[in-house]
C-alpha cells in the first residue's frame, strides 16, 4: 500500500458486547456479525462470533453480562456501505429450544473514540438478519422492542485524512445511546 498516494483506507474496530437488559428473558447468548458494502473487505480479525450463555445476576441490577470481545479491521475505497454490526440475541423457550429474542444493528462509529449503543427489537417469526440493514425493506415488519444491548466500541482509522475525508473531532468521551427506561442502570 503506497504511503504517498493511498487509494484505500483502513478502519480498525475493537471493543466488546458488554451486557444486556432484557426484563422478560434469562439465559441468553448473542451472535454478532458485520455487514458492509461492496467496497469493503475485512483484512484482520473475526467478522462474527457467538458468545457464552449468561444468566441474570442475583443483585438488584439483574444484569446479563457477556463481556464478549470484538476485534476486526476493514479496508475500503469508499465510505458508502460503512460496516454495521448486527446482533442477534437468543434464549431458551419453555421446551428448551433456542429461539431468537431480539435483533439490533448499528453502524460502527467513525470518529476515533468510544460509544455506547442501542436497543434491540423482538422478533417476528420470519425475520432474517439482512432485512434490518436494507433501508428499503423494513416496511412490512412489525416488531416489539424488548430489551437493550450495550456495546462499547473504539475505532481507529488510517489514511482517511490523506484521501480527503474529514471525520470530525475525535470523541474521547462516551456517547450515550438512546435513553434507557427508568430504573435501568447504565
Amino acid at each position: 500500500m503506497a504511503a504517498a498516494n493511498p487509494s484505500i483506507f483502513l478502519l480498525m474496530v475493537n471493543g466488546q458486547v458488554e451486557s444486556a437488559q432484557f426484563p422478560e428473558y434469562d439465559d441468553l447468548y448473542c451472535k454478532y456479525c458485520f455487514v458492509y458494502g461492496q467496497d469493503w473487505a475485512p483484512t484482520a480479525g473475526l467478522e462474527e462470533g457467538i458468545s457464552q450463555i449468561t444468566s441474570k445476576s442475583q443483585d438488584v441490577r439483574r444484569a446479563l453480562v457477556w463481556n464478549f470481545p470484538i476485534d476486526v479491521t476493514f479496508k475500503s475505497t469508499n465510505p458508502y456501505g460503512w460496516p454495521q454490526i448486527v446482533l442477534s440475541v437468543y434464549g431458551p423457550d419453555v421446551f428448551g429450544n433456542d429461539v431468537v429474542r431480539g435483533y439490533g444493528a448499528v453502524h460502527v462509529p467513525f470518529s476515533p473514540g468510544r460509544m455506547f449503543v442501542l436497543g434491540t427489537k423482538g422478533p417476528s417469526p420470519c425475520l432474517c438478519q439482512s432485512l434490518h440493514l436494507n433501508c428499503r425493506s423494513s416496511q412490512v415488519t412489525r416488531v416489539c422492542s424488548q430489551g437493550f444491548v450495550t456495546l462499547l466500541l473504539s475505532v481507529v482509522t488510517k489514511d482517511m485524512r490523506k484521501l480527503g475525508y474529514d471525520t470530525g473531532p475525535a470523541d474521547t468521551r462516551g456517547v450515550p445511546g438512546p435513553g434507557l427506561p427508568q430504573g435501568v442502570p447504565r
Partner: protein
Amino acid sequence: MAEVHVIGQIIGATGFSESSLFCKWGIHTGAAWKLLSGVREGQTQVDTPQVGDMAYWCHPIDLHFATKGLQGWPRLHLQVWSQDSFGRCQLAGYGFCHVPSSPGTHQLDCPTWRPLGSWREQLARAFVGGGPQLLHADTIYSGADRYRLHTAAGGTVRLELGLLLRHFDRYGVEC
C-alpha cells in the same frame, strides 16, 4: 466536486400518545446536489414497545452525495404514523431537520407536529381515527405555505447521524 456521506440511524420516537409507530423518511436536497449511492427515502418497521414508552426502529441511513454548491443542504423529513390492530394507519406527526453541517457524530431530536382540523374533525379523530393530512409533503420541510396551518405538537423523533465530508477544504469551505 465535494462529497458528503451521511451515515447513521433513525433511532426511534418518544412522546407520542399512540403506540405501534412507524416512520416514513426522505431526504430533500437542492439542485447542486447529486445522490451517488443510497436510497433517498424509506419506511421503517412498525414497533410496539414492551419496555418503556420509546418506540425503537434503529433504521439505518447511508447516503453518499456529491455537490457543487452549499445551497440546498440536505434536509431529512419524517412522517410518523401509528398502526392499530386492524391495520389502519393514522398520522401521528410530521417533522424535519437539516442534516448536520459539521463532520462527526450528532444526536438529533426532531420535534413533530400534526395538523389540527376543525372541531368536528378533532372530535371524529378522537372517536373514529383519521384526521387531516398534508396534500403535498414538501410543506414538511419548506416554510412557504405554513401560515395557513393550525397544528398541534406530536412527540419527538431521535436520530443519530454521522457526517463525513470530503474535499471541502479544497474549495475553501469551513465546516
